[in-house]
């Protein structure tokens, strides 16, 4: 207990803060960070590369905007050249379909990436010059429209051969970066907006992200940079604490995975639905356990992954908020959404909730709140996941791509309604009980609900909405 208290107050220990402002302390911190990072990634070279960039960024404060641009773009190119991202395999699929074999995959991916970065920069300049244009007023809708136009061009039978390969390659790149670009375009009308170098440096910044921008855009970066050697030391200690916590979660997930999947032989939700459809269902309590484990595993992995990214950003001296924070303590659905996937929620709020909230139903507060919530947790959630999995279009084709999404769309609608109702209850003055029974009740209801939703939220697309609905009814013993 004493050690835990000492550890949690590391960032307030003046001796350690002072020590980290000298080269010995910094070198020790770097070694510690690399070792801890390597435990999860099992790749010391990757750890050295990522953390090397982060520490270099932190300790060379001169020309930091340019450094951000160079580090981010160099890493983007490196990932393509070394095939360590998924673009190349996605592009290779369509190259095989179109019998294009005389150009290396990575060259096409790299070409698309360079074109994308150039167009992204031109889009920023355009929006800045013409703030009243459609792209200036509704950047998110313009970006979404363009994504769907590209999808129809690449998979709608309009193009063949190299033209289709190039369009597809650009689409895959575009969908991986579109949310970063959305934040950059929104920032163009901000007072004190960041330079173009920073905006381009925030297109999947070097400290890591998925298609989801961890750390949002330049607007948050302006507020989050450590402004002194002392603030940098405190930020880096917080990064170390988060990394240690991430490794604890990794250990916990490893143990629980062994317990559930190896010892208890709990299968995935998809496997259970398949078994049910083959008239060989598992007992109902077992299915409930499957859903609980699926949700727990999801929460652990997103917590772990997010903490690794945010810890790296903090080593770079960026004071970013955590990506998840005590999700088991959620008291309402809104609270859950806020705690478990902070940066996803922020993306939904900034790009879907806020614009809807500020524009529509201004005279009807309850409808206004519900509509904006629905646009974020429902529509935004749907669009985000549809574009994230755009690579499936290469195998499925357009029709199956849309029809197989119906289950996840249903998941989004139900989740949005639950969050909307939760939001309305809070607005109406409802406060969750802070007593122990009240907390337990909130935990059971929220985690029970989201675990149940896993039936529809599973993203493999291997079963239809009707089949999943049948499975749900079976789970509750309701005959069809």
């Amino acid at each position, binding site marked *: 207990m004493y050690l835990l208290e000492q550890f949690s107050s590391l960032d307030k220990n003046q001796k350690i803060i002072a020590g980290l402002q000298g080269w010995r302390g910094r070198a020790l911190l770097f070694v510690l960070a690399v070792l801890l990072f390597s435990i999860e990634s099992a790749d010391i070279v990757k750890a050295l590369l990522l953390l090397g960039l982060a520490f270099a960024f932190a300790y060379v404060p001169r020309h930091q905007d340019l450094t951000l641009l160079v580090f981010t773009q160099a890493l983007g190119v490196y990932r393509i050249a070394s095939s360590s991202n998924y673009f190349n395999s996605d592009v290779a699929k369509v190259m095989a379909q179109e019998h294009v074999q005389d150009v290396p995959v990575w060259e096409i991916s790299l070409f698309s990436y360079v074109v994308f970065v150039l167009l992204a920069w031109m889009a920023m300049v355009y929006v800045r010059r013409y703030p009243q244009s459609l792209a200036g007023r509704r950047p998110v809708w313009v970006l979404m429209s363009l994504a769907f136009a590209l999808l129809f061009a690449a998979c709608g039978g309009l193009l063949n051969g190299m033209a289709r390969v190039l369009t597809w390659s650009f689409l895959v790149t575009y969908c991986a970066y579109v949310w970063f670009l959305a934040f950059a375009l*929104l*920032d163009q*009308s*901000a*007072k004190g907006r960041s330079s173009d170098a920073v905006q381009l440096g925030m297109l999947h910044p070097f400290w890591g992200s998925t298609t989801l921008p961890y750390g949002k855009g330049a*607007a*948050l970066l*302006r*507020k*989050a940079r450590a402004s002194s050697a002392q603030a940098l030391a405190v930020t880096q200690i917080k990064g170390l604490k988060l990394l240690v916590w991430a490794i604890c979660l990794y250990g916990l997930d490893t143990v629980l995975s062994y317990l559930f999947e190896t010892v208890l032989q709990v299968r995935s939700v998809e496997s259970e639905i398949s078994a049910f459809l083959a008239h060989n269902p598992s007992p109902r309590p077992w299915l409930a356990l499957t859903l609980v484990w699926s949700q727990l595993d999801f929460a652990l992995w997103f917590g772990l992954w997010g903490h690794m990214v945010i810890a790296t950003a903090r080593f770079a001296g960026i004071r970013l*908020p*955590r990506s998840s*924070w005590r999700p088991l303590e959620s*008291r309402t659905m*809104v*609270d859950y959404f*806020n705690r478990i996937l*902070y940066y996803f*929620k*922020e993306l939904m*709020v*900034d790009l879907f*909730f*806020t614009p809807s*909230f*500020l*524009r529509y139903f*201004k005279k009807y*507060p309850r409808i206004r*709140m519900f509509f*904006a*919530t629905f646009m974020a947790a429902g529509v935004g959630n749907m669009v985000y996941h549809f574009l994230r999995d755009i690579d499936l279009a290469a195998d499925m084709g357009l029709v199956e791509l849309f029809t197989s999404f119906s289950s996840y769309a249903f998941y989004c609608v139900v989740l949005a309604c639950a969050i909307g109702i939760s*939001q309305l209850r*809070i*607005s109406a003055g409802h*406060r969750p009980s*802070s007593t122990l029974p009240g907390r337990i009740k909130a935990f059971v209801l929220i985690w029970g609900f989201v675990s149940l939703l896993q039936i529809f939220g599973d993203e493999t697309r291997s079963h239809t909405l009707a089949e999943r609905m049948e499975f749900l009814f079976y789970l509750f013993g309701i005959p069809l």
Partner: protein
Amino acid sequence: MNTDLHLRLRPYLQQLLTQNMDTQEFSDTDSLFLSGRIDSFSLMQLVMHLEANYQIDFSSVHFEAPLLDTVADIAAFIQEHSSTSTL
């Protein structure tokens, strides 16, 4: 600095924080939003409060959450955008 405005804002912000189960003190320059003490949904409640009490039309001004991060930020935002003359 408009301390009168700061004083008028504080009870409402305290109420928002309490709603988020946060009863800690806060100064005029403490980060409320970026620190996570006020979530995005509560921020929208703050927006409604500012619309109703200070006649700010958020659809016609550039708005981003960091602009309302502290009591001082909110007061400055009101002074810049409010159409009421009694600030």
